[in-house]
């Protein structure tokens, strides 16, 4: 029961906070407000030109390993109740991802310039 209550309250709170700004904020635009904020001076380039690919690669790898770390939290919660089998399971899980990490490193994904 409390789980439902928690989801209800926090869900409602999230919705209210997000919609309050959309609902209450006055909408008055002018041509300057549409332009990107570049410390007040006129932008030197209009539009965004192509980015080097290595940024996308780093972003993807970060996402991968960040989600990996995210799975530690539920594992930590049930750590006590698993009585001893927790560590080998985590080791297996990490080994798989470490292999991926070593592969990326060898392929040169992390060499920057």
């Amino acid at each position: 029961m409390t789980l439902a209550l928690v989801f209800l309250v926090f869900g409602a709170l999230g919705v209210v906070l997000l919609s309050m700004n959309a609902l209450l904020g006055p909408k008055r635009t002018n041509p300057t407000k549409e332009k990107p904020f570049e410390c007040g001076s006129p932008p030197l380039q209009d539009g965004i030109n192509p980015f080097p690919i290595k940024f996308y690669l780093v972003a993807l790898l970060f996402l991968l390993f960040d989600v990996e770390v995210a799975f530690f939290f539920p594992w930590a919660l049930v750590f006590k109740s698993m009585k001893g089998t927790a560590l080998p399971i985590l080791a297996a899980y990490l080994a798989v991802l470490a292999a991926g990490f070593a592969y990326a490193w060898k392929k040169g994904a992390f060499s920057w310039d």
Partner: protein
Amino acid sequence: MTTRLQAQARPDSLLLNMGPSHPAMHGTIRIMLELDGERILNSEVEVGYLHRGFEKTCEHRTWFNLLIYTDRLNYVSPLINNVGYVMAVEKLLGLEVPERAQWIRVLMSELSRVSDHLTCLAAMAMECGAFTAFLYKMKAREFLWDVIEQTTGARMTTSYIRIGGVRADLHADYEAAVRKGVDETRKVLKDVRGLLDKNKIFLNRTRDIAVMTPENAISYGWTGPCLRSTGIAYDVRKAQPYLTYDRLNFEVPVGERGDNFDRYMVRMKEMEQSLRIIEQTLPALQASAPTVEAGGLEPAEAIRASRTRRPESRVRLSPNLEGSEKAVYPGIMAADKRSVPPPKEDAYTTIEGLIGHFKHFMKGHGLRPPKGEVYFAVEGGNGELGYYLVSDGSDRPYRLHLRGPCFHIVAALEELIRGRYVADVIPTFGSMNMIGGELDR
């Protein structure tokens, strides 16, 4: 209008404005960066966003009421600008300033120098993320400003140091305030040293970044803490001792590698030297303190009394007129009638004082230095702060030019950040202590 950078930029690089209204650019510098990812290929620094027409305005002001403009040049250490300007005019006039006034000027200059370094390093630390160091240093600066405010009446823009001496004698219990300020600053310096000196993040952001070689620094005309961080020990207080600096013992700290961290370290050490100087001025000021007997007449009674006969007893000034009291006058103002306003008591009670007062402040009659030109430099917060005055004998300067130390330091910014990352621009610029008023004049 396409700037030089846009013309030279490669088509595939990203052009970014680190513009005037940026927290780390002190609001007045625009750096246009040509980026390849995070690395800076080329940059163009645009200044002039705080050009306030100082030199042109000073040509339309008399020598005396020009002081308010010199306060606002390097507004982080305002009293040092005043000392520079006033000593340049005194050199032009050939005026001798009494001993006590010189000691007060040294005390005020050093208080200003410590608050300059405190503000500069506070901003540099905060821009690298160390917000605690910023709050600690601002707290220390408050104590120093209390001392300045107690004597001069204002915290920052004081116009306290006048041609021929200083406006008022030190406050009655200035010594306690100075000691408290020095102790608090020492405590804060110890805390910040503990926070930043061996802090891995701060070291990675500043060690061996924006390294400046001594020859390059000389070629850019660098002076002050930035030049000393490259290893050259040039300090105007030691090179051409002015005021009573030759009777004070203090060292000139010197860095070895000339990178951001050395500029930070030289300023930290310089603060300790300045605190040492402040402590050395206290006994000298104590020795030359005049004995002022209490009691006297209020100005209103004195004026009534002076109508019948000259009042014998001293005129006690109301608190806000305290300052140019006759008794302390010989200690704080030169005796030359032509260039120094008479004390307030004379202006109230004697006709000669009144005439002298008006002659001094009326247009066309005030202070008129002889025809000629002079260059005088003092050790400002950022380096050699030089005034070049040209006088044509009238009561307004014909030409007043300021040699701003941070003008030359910021001129090297383009070269220092080429090839570095965007994140290195912030500590490099922070360690230069760019002050808009002194750079753009």
